[in-house]
């Protein structure tokens, strides 16, 4: 079963055929180094001792992060995924990108997906130059393609001559700009962005917005994960609200964000 078509501002624009179909997706992953505490006051002293020592011994937790999500995304759509920290947004994004295997359910996509996560392949001891090559190759480009786009990447990142210095000498903003520029250089059909736009100044945000629009115009699909509804409102037409691994709401960005905002401040009495 899949979601009904999205309605709202984006749907009114010309929307293409489905580019991503997510069908009853469940994702689990393993987490090492700790274990959930089961508070049990009635347990005997021995049982509590065993339970406490388990934290140091079998410190691995199976996390069921996404629990039955279904939706359909279309070509030319920019979709924001919002939700609180730890609600399963990033896991959902990684599963849709095909990087985490589904425990059950299925994900179908058209073309190539790229997660704006190239930073994982970069090495801070190496120069920006070498990192552009490494990142580009990591995204699946050929060495010739990387060389052809090299100047564009440096220009888009706005780092100038610093490209010959090791990345460890970059400011966090410069690093973020370079990472975004490398990721965008691969021109994927489906681009996924995970909170990355939180860094960078206003000018860079504007450039990122342009890049996202460009990908959408080329009939690509963009996913943007954020816990800030302002970012999602600014960049997306449709939003998915995820909570505790479930899809709470799917629809036009303002409608979903309003609902999310209301739920985020439950204790405050309504204004006016």
């Amino acid at each position: 079963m899949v979601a009904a078509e999205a309605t709202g501002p984006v749907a009114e624009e010309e929307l293409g055929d489905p580019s991503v179909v997510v069908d009853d997706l469940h994702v689990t992953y393993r987490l090492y180094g700790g274990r959930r505490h089961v508070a049990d006051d009635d347990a005997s002293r021995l049982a509590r001792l065993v339970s406490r020592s388990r934290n140091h011994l079998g410190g691995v937790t199976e996390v069921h992060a996404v629990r039955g999500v279904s939706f359909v995304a279309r070509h030319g759509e920019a979709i924001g995924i919002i939700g609180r920290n730890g609600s399963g947004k990033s896991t959902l994004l990684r599963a849709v990108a095909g990087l985490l295997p589904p425990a059950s359910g299925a994900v179908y996509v058209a073309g190539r997906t790229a997660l704006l996560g190239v930073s994982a392949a970069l090495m801070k001891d190496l120069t920006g130059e070498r990192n552009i090559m490494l990142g580009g190759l990591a995204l699946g480009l050929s060495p010739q393609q990387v060389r052809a786009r090299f100047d564009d990447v440096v220009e888009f990142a706005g780092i100038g001559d610093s490209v010959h210095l090791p990345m460890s000498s970059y400011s966090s903003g410069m690093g973020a700009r370079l990472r975004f520029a490398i990721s965008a250089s691969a021109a994927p059909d489906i681009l996924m962005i995970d909170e990355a736009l939180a860094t960078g100044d206003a000018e860079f945000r504007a450039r990122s917005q342009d890049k996202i629009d460009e990908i959408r115009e080329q009939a690509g699909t963009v996913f943007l994960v954020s816990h800030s509804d302002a970012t999602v409102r600014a960049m997306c037409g449709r939003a998915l609200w995820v909570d505790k691994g479930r899809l709470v709401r799917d629809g036009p960005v303002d409608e979903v964000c309003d609902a999310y905002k209301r739920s985020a401040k439950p204790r405050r009495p309504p204004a006016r």
Partner: protein
Amino acid sequence: MTHSSQATAAVGDGDGVDAAALAARYGLHRVGTRPSLRTYLRQMWERRHFIAALASSNAYSRNQNNYLGQLWAILNPLFLAGVYLLVFGVLLGTRGGVDNYVGFLTVGIFMFTFASTSLMSGAKSITSNIGMVRALHFPRAALPVAAVLAELATVLPALAVLLGILLATGERPTWSWLAFVPALLLLYVFSTGAAFVAARLVVGSRDLLNLIPLALRLARYVSGVFFSIQHYTGDNPLGLLLEYQPLAVYLSLVRSCLLAEVPQSALLWGFGAGWALLFAIGGFLLFWQREESYGRG
């Protein structure tokens, strides 16, 4: 969370279109599944530049954070050989049955160190790069391959040191020195195969990472790094087992190429090629079987 049930219901009921059929109609492909062996091999070939860049960056960045920089690639093995020579050649005296003990020991240490560091970094290649695995698409076998390739790149400068030491101890270059290249290549292929196996096992159970150094320590003492196995065990069954296990085979093989006193042997070459093929093919298949699940951690 009042909208929760409504929204889920809306998504669940939808318009009744089957997802797989919809995907097929618009030509979407399923993600998060294991590619066929053929596709997988093709992907590995397409990513050869990435593997090479990853390996060279890895090997390079290792020594770049201090003043002497890349010079350490030569200094480290030189000092290491000095330490072992002091302990085993001067203090303990395990030179039984070996004429050129310094050459014998240096070959043993350099080759064994290459194999053991390869296995170690191959074993950790998935778990220590889990961020990359969870962010980028590429055949995961690229990671163990790049890890061992980085070790090979690191060991190459050390080989210049090795040949220098051999010349200083009175060995003279002969035609059999050329056979050192294929011998090293076999050891490299074997190490990559062993890295596939280790990487897959470590993802399944990280506790193994604590046992691998222990196993390598044991291997160091029984593979004839510091002493001639034949001289100390003779021809009994245990001795033969020790002599033809992979690591001992490769040490003897390289020694037969570089040291005048160790004769070349077809049997050794056969074992060397056999172990390399067995581990490379078997290890690759074993690794590929879990391809889709490495992102899970």
